[in-house]
């Protein structure tokens, strides 16, 4: 069937969602997805970042849809016309969503392990406005450990539910979940229980922000200092297809391989992720192709083309006015630097 997105028409199969169709066109047209994650069943619909305008429902019924619809869940109808990046209402709403997601999100990008590969950073960079209007205090939580290998910074969580679906669908027993409700909802095991499961580490890969991080990697490096390499091993638990992250000759982190939408292609086991950190344990395939506009790709093969200051200054530019009373002095130099350019 035919669908037109931002004036580009293409043929898709029945059952395709607007998101999938837009991704076929390319990253410029694809709506941002903060919660939808193709490999996970039932994901999507929650962040509302992907809302788009349907100006014609289908060939048969060309009426526009009254409300914006989530691209990640709405199936294409034959003759549907969708507006994403060319619709002001969509963009305005998206600015609102960024604002909502940052409302209780801390400004700790400079110390966050995810900085540089954070989808919220990308999302706010592309769709946010630089000033904020909130004067309210943020909800805060203490960081906690979910077992020996995973740390949870609930402050940063955007409640996309991806890690919950991962635990449900990939591991053989979920011990964490969403507690409480509303803006007090939190990811937790409720009582301190370790998440101890062969595939639990995948929760780190699916988390769009720095809420779930790899404790064996923490503070070893900023992501833009490290170099990703595709490698495999023969693993009895998983496919063994991974990305190794090198700093110098040292493997500082192992993750699943991700496609251009940041979705892991194959989930890997905890042994590969946390315990196999010697080059000798792997067969190296070659450097990772990175097609996202992330800081990693900008940096990668030209050896530090990009200054590590970039994400920090990005944080400074985008977030500077959000904070009301917190100490922001560490950002000052960056702001000046930015102004000079």
């Amino acid at each position, binding site marked *: 069937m035919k669908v037109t997105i931002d004036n580009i028409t293409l043929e898709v199969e029945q059952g395709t969602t607007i998101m999938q169709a837009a991704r076929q066109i390319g990253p410029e047209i694809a709506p941002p997805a903060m919660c939808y994650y193709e490999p996970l069943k039932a994901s999507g619909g929650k962040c509302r970042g992907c809302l788009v305008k349907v100006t014609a429902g289908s060939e048969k019924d060309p009426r526009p849809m009254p409300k914006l619809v989530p691209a990640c869940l709405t199936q294409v109808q034959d003759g549907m016309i969708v507006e994403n990046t060319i619709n002001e209402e969509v963009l305005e709403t998206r600015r609102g969503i960024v604002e909502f997601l940052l409302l209780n999100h801390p400004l700790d990008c400079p110390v966050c392990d995810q900085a540089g590969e954070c989808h919220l950073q990308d999302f706010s960079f592309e769709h946010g406005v630089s000033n904020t209007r909130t004067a309210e205090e943020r909800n805060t939580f203490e960081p906690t450990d979910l077992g020996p290998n995973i740390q949870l910074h609930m402050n940063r969580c955007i409640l996309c539910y991806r890690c919950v679906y991962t635990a449900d669908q990939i591991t053989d027993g*979920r011990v964490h*979940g*969403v507690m409480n409700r509303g803006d007090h909802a939190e990811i937790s095991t*409720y009582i301190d229980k370790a998440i101890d499961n062969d595939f639990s580490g995948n929760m780190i890969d699916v988390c769009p922000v720095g809420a779930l991080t790899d404790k064996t990697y923490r503070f070893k490096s900023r992501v833009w200092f490290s170099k990703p390499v595709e490698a495999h091993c023969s693993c009895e638990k998983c496919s063994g297809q991974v990305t190794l992250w090198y700093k110098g000759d040292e493997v500082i982190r192992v993750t699943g391989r991700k496609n251009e939408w940041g979705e892991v292609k194959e989930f890997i086991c905890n042994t590969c992720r946390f315990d196999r950190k010697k080059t000798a344990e792997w067969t190296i395939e070659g450097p990772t192709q990175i097609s996202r506009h992330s800081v990693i790709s900008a940096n990668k093969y030209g050896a530090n083309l990009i200054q590590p200051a970039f994400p920090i200054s990005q944080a400074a530019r985008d977030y500077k006015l959000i904070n009301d009373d917190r100490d922001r002095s560490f950002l000052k130099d960056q702001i000046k630097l930015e102004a000079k350019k």
Partner: protein
Amino acid sequence: METKNTIVFPAETLDLVQKIMKRYPEGKHKSAILPILHLAQAEWKWCSPEVMDYVASLLSIAPVEVYEVASFYTMFHLEPVGEHVIEYCRTGPCCLMGGVEVYDHLKKRLGIQTGETTSDGKFTIKEVECLAACGWGPVFQIREKFYMQLTAEKVDQIIDELSK
């Protein structure tokens, strides 16, 4: 503090639990979680992790599923509470009927704030939203009983009665 093995429903409650689980189609007995949590709270006053683990075992589900549910719904006390939990309605219509003053009186009378328990462990005050009794406000609820059209004097009477 109860230890794990003392947390078992009395036989007649266990019968009731079995009956409740049969209200739902084959294999869908997870639906019994709310009714059973109510029974558990009636039995042990609050839903401690041990109580919730017990509920999970009755339903053969993962404990986290019970934690998630119990923490979603406001009626379940996840912290220890006093003998009588006074849950007063703070929503608009009750405020119109002078709720704020009456509840202030209640707090003064018991010498505690919302969310606290008196030192003798008799009373806990909690704030809740509309109890579907707005026309008969101000309202509070103690366990299953509704106390309506409250005034400062009525509050005193109720507290006197329950303090005996």
